[in-house]
Every structure is written in structure tokens, then in C-alpha cells.
């Protein structure tokens, strides 16, 4: 390749290579698009803060055993270390089982991340499939699938999740399934709207004329075009997913003790609210910061990936 980037290490050389109007390879074109997106994204300080919070969450979750000074489950001395206020030894105080709240919050980030990632992995493909199939095939398939979607949309999310958890039994896995079941309908809506916009375009017609099967058209040509607006929506939804999971945990239907789930930790702290406020306050702040991070990140991504929706 002429003018290989390795030979021009200065930043202007890199930038020129990235912004080249005539990319030599797909990779170069993709990296160039990515760089442009990043430039727009990084101009928005709030979005960068959001990204920072989300990255911090991932790092804390990965290195929880290095960061946390104490065990999240085993408590200290119940006679002397119960319900201690924040101090140098226990940064955020201790709870009723003499466990260090900071360590529990650090380990709890794993549960939060686990919930968010799994819900996204379950709900997004369902929504994507339902939406693209409905939009592409149209007719009665569209009517039936969209009516089902509307029915699920008709339930308030938390209440439907509650009913599902009631049926499946409390526990973190069931909470994840319940939240995923209640999360996919908006994705199906978005995917359908995007599909309707592309289904009559020339390139779909040309693929069809080349003899591509319907599943191939949907999976290979329609789905990729719906992904970017779905990513925005899923990121914006993550805060809601975290809040729903925490709400289920608070009601005692999510993660079960002694798991350090943040919502359940707030519920424990409720019994000591007036005299030992830190037991309830600290995990709530963690929930707030993380969902704020996802909201800021989602707003920033929307501005970059979907300029139409930005107000």
C-alpha cells in the first residue's frame, strides 16, 4: 500500500490517512468514519463524562477483587464493626452484618453490568428480528407481530416484570429474563420503522433480483441498517434497565442475599435510615451515578449516530 501509515507517524499524517476522501481499503474507510464520529462525540463534554463513568463501571467490575479491601459477603466483628459511619478504615461505613459497604458496592458493579449486558443481549435480537420481519414482509405478518408488540407495550414495564418474577420466582436470572421480556417492544418498533424506510430501495430490489432468499435479505441487508439506531436506543434504555433491576432488588425480587446488589442494599438500609443513613444512601448514589453515565453516553451517541433525532 502506497503511503503506508506506519511511515508517517505524525498526527497530521494519521489524520490525513483517516480522513482521506479516497480510502484504499474498507478498514481505512471504517476507521475514518469512526474517527469522525469520535471527533463529534468528544466535542460534547457531558457525553465524554458519561463514557468515562461507563468505562469506570467496567473497570471496577473487572478488577473488583483487586479494588475491594474487604470481602463483599463475609462481615467483620459483629460486636464492634456493625453499622459504623464512614471512616478511614471503612470508606463508606459498614452495614448491619458488619460488612464494608464500599467493598459491597465494588462487587455489586459486577451484578449491575451482568444485568445490563444480558438484558441487551436477549432483548435486542428479539426486537430486531420481530421488527425487521414485520416491516419487510408486511401484510398480516406485520399486523399480528405489531399487535403483539403493542400488547407488551401496553403494560407498564415494572409491573409486568413484577408479574413475571412472581411467576418465575425471585432471583437475579429471573429478574433478567423478566426485564428482557419487557424491554424488546420499543426495539421492534424502531427496527420496523427503519425497515420500512429501506425495504423499497433499489439495492434491496437488486439483491432480490440476484435471487437472494428472504431470510438472507433480512439478516444480511436489512438488519445491519437498523443496528445503529438500535444501539442508541439500547444505550438510552440501559439507565432504565438498571433502575428496573434495582427496583426489583429493592422489593426483594431481584438478586437474593447475600449478593451485594445495589437495590437490595438500599432495602436493607431502609431499616437503619434515620440513625445510620449511609447504609441506604451509598448504594443509591452508585445506582444514580451509573444510570446517569448511561444516560449521558446515550445522549452523546444519539447526537453522533442519529443527528435527525437530536433536538
Amino acid at each position, binding site marked *: 500500500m502506497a503511503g503506508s501509515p506506519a511511515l508517517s507517524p505524525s498526527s497530521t499524517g494519521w489524520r490525513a490517512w483517516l480522513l482521506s476522501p479516497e480510502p484504499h481499503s474498507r478498514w481505512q474507510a471504517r476507521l475514518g468514519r469512526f474517527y469522525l464520529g469520535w471527533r463529534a462525540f468528544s466535542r460534547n463534554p457531558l457525553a465524554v463524562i458519561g463514557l468515562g463513568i461507563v468505562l469506570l463501571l467496567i473497570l471496577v467490575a473487572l478488577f473488583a477483587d483487586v479494588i475491594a479491601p474487604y470481602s463483599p459477603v463475609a462481615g467483620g466483628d459483629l460486636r464492634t464493626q456493625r453499622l459504623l459511619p464512614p471512616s478511614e478504615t471503612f470508606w463508606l461505613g459498614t452495614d448491619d452484618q458488619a460488612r464494608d459497604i464500599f467493598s459491597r458496592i465494588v462487587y455489586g458493579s459486577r451484578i449491575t453490568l451482568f444485568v445490563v449486558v444480558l438484558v441487551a443481549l436477549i432483548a435486542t435480537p428479539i426486537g430486531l428480528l420481530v421488527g425487521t420481519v414485520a416491516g419487510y414482509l408486511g401484510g398480516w405478518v406485520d399486523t399480528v407481530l405489531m399487535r403483539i408488540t403493542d400488547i407488551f407495550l401496553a403494560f407498564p414495564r415494572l*409491573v*409486568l416484570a413484577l*408479574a413475571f418474577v*412472581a411467576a418465575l420466582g425471585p432471583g437475579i436470572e429471573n429478574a433478567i429474563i423478566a426485564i428482557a421480556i419487557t424491554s424488546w417492544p420499543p426495539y421492534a418498533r424502531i427496527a420496523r420503522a427503519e425497515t420500512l424506510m429501506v425495504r423499497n430501495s433499489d439495492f434491496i430490489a437488486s439483491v432480490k433480483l440476484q435471487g437472494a432468499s428472504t431470510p438472507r435479505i433480512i439478516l444480511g441487508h436489512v438488519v445491519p441498517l437498523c443496528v445503529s439506531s438500535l444501539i442508541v436506543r439500547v444505550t438510552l434504555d440501559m439507565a432504565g434497565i438498571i433502575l428496573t433491576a*434495582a427496583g426489583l432488588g429493592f*422489593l426483594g425480587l431481584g438478586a437474593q442475599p447475600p449478593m451485594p446488589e445495589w437495590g437490595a442494599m438500599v432495602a436493607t438500609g431502609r431499616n437503619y435510615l*434515620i440513625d445510620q443513613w449511609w447504609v441506604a444512601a451509598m448504594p*443509591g448514589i452508585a445506582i*444514580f451515578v451509573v444510570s*446517569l453515565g448511561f444516560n449521558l453516553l446515550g445522549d452523546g451517541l444519539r447526537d453522533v449516530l442519529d443527528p435527525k433525532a437530536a433536538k
Partner: protein
Amino acid sequence: MSRGGGHVGALRSFLKKVAQFVIVLATTLLGLVAVTFFIGRVVPIDPVIAIVGDRAPAHVYERVRQELGLDRPLIEQFVIYVKKAATGDFGNSVLTTNPVMTDIINVFPATLELATLGTIIGVIVGIPLGVLAAVKRGSLLDQFVRVLGLVGYSVPIFWLGLMGLLLFYAKLGWVAGPGRIDVTYSYLYTPVTGIVLLDTAMQGQWDAFWDAVSHVLLPACLLGYFSLAYISRMTRSFMLNELAQEYVIAARVKGLSELRVIWRHALRNAAVPLITVIALSYANLLEGSVLTETVFAWPGLGQYITNSLQNADMNAVLGGTLVIGTVFVLLNLVSDLLYRLLDPRTR
């Protein structure tokens, strides 16, 4: 003749729309019932054992099973379930032994009271904030409204409620604690509407009324905050849309005062989509009440559902879920109808 034909045509298209509406409503409600029926079937708890206990002899077990209709084919069970649900019969609550519908009628006014007050606060504070943010775009106030919205979308409602109790009840003593009214006042009035504020005011029990006010203040403000976070954000974006329209320039050129242009002309046009937003936020508050009611020990539908959940009382849980779902659907429908009624372009 042709005019008459036009009338008939208009009537026919109107009837067609009504029919479409009814069909959509009916299928959605049927779908809601189907979802709760399905949830009720996947429960690992055997409803027969829940009634007779696990030591009952086989013939008792079999008889109860038949009485509950569990020996029939699933589809037949579903038809029976739908018929019962249509008449408001969700079975009896295991916990209270009353019919679930009676329980729900008893607790629903409490939820309604809270959600309505919350929405009123959200509208009264949220709309002016949104309008001002749009008019002074980029100003400090605009930033403030933005932060208010972001925090509202990110903060766990149950945690904010607890912190509110800690600050305003425990530390400052400005409001009363959890519950709807102090026990001392609770026998001074007879419940008529089930809405304590109305009942006490109508019966002239002003001491009880003010006590109820101090109880409702904090949870209502909490729900009001979540409502206003949403309403102000939407108002802002609708108003930005309207202020960019040409009629606004025309009104200004005509010499109308800025106040009149903003509050009479632009806001009135933004009001139509706002109705949908307000209805949606009202519906969301019904949902938000599940967690709020738990925090504030508010004896409403949300607390009824969570209490029943903790006691594996599936009839009550599913009945409550169905009622909230139905209210949700109806609110959406009402907002849709209002939208059509108020916006001449949709006719």
C-alpha cells in the same frame, strides 16, 4: 343530493374509525388477559396444593382440581378466564380472602390520589419551566432544566423517597412520616370516595385534612418531580419547534407583545402534543407508585401488588397487573381521542 352523499360518506368513515378503535382496544385488552393467563400458568406453585395443603388425600385434591377447572383443556380454561376477567372476577385473594376486585376497588383511590397530585405538580411546574427553557435557550435556566431532567431519568425513585424521608421527616420535621393519615385522625371521618383529602374536606374535619396534607406532601412532590422532569423536557422541545414557525414571526411583526406570542400563540399550538405527554406521564406515575407506595407505606394498588407478591398470592398479583394494564391502555386511548378532538389537522 351530493351534499347528502358527502354526509353519509363522512358518517361512514367516522363509523369505520370507531370500529377500528374498538377492534384495537378489544384485541389489546384480550392480549393483556392472555399475558396474565400465561403468567398464571407458568407459576411453579400448584394452585390446588395452595388451597388443600400438601397432605390432602387424593380424592380431595382431585375434587378441588375439578372445581378450579384445571382438568379441562387449556383453551377452555382460557375462555373461562376471559369471561371471568370481563366481569371483573379475578378470583379471591388468598391473603385477604376477599374477591380481588373488591380489594382493588378499596386500594385504588389511594393510588389515584397520589398519581393525580403528582401529575398536577408536574404540569404546574413542568410546563412553565419547559417554556422558559425554550425561550431562553442556552441560558442558565435552560441548563438547569436539562440537569433536572437528566437527574430525574437517572435517580432511583425509591432511593430519592428514602432520602426525602430522612431529610424532611426525620431531620427537619417539615412533613409527616409514612402512611396516609395519623391513627388519631383516622376515625374522625367516614371514607366515602376513598380519597382522604376529599373525604376530610367534605366532612369539615380540617385537623384531619391538614394531617393528610402533611402526609401526602412528600410522596406527591416526589412523583411530581418525576413527572415534571419528563413534561418540562418535552415542553421545551415542542416549544422550540413552534417558536421556529413562521406564524410566530408574523405575530411579532404584527406588534403583539412577546408574552402574548409565547404564552397564547406558541404554547397553544404546543398544547396538543403535550396532552399525549401528560397522559403518558400520568400512566407512568401509576407505575412509579409501585415503588413509591412501598417506601411511604401508602396503602394503594402498588403496595397491594407487592404485598401479594411477597405472599405468593397470584390471583391478586395478576388482577392488579391487569387493572394497571387496562388503565394504561385506556389513558393512551383517551389521549389519542383528545388529540384528534383538539387538532383540526387530524380530522
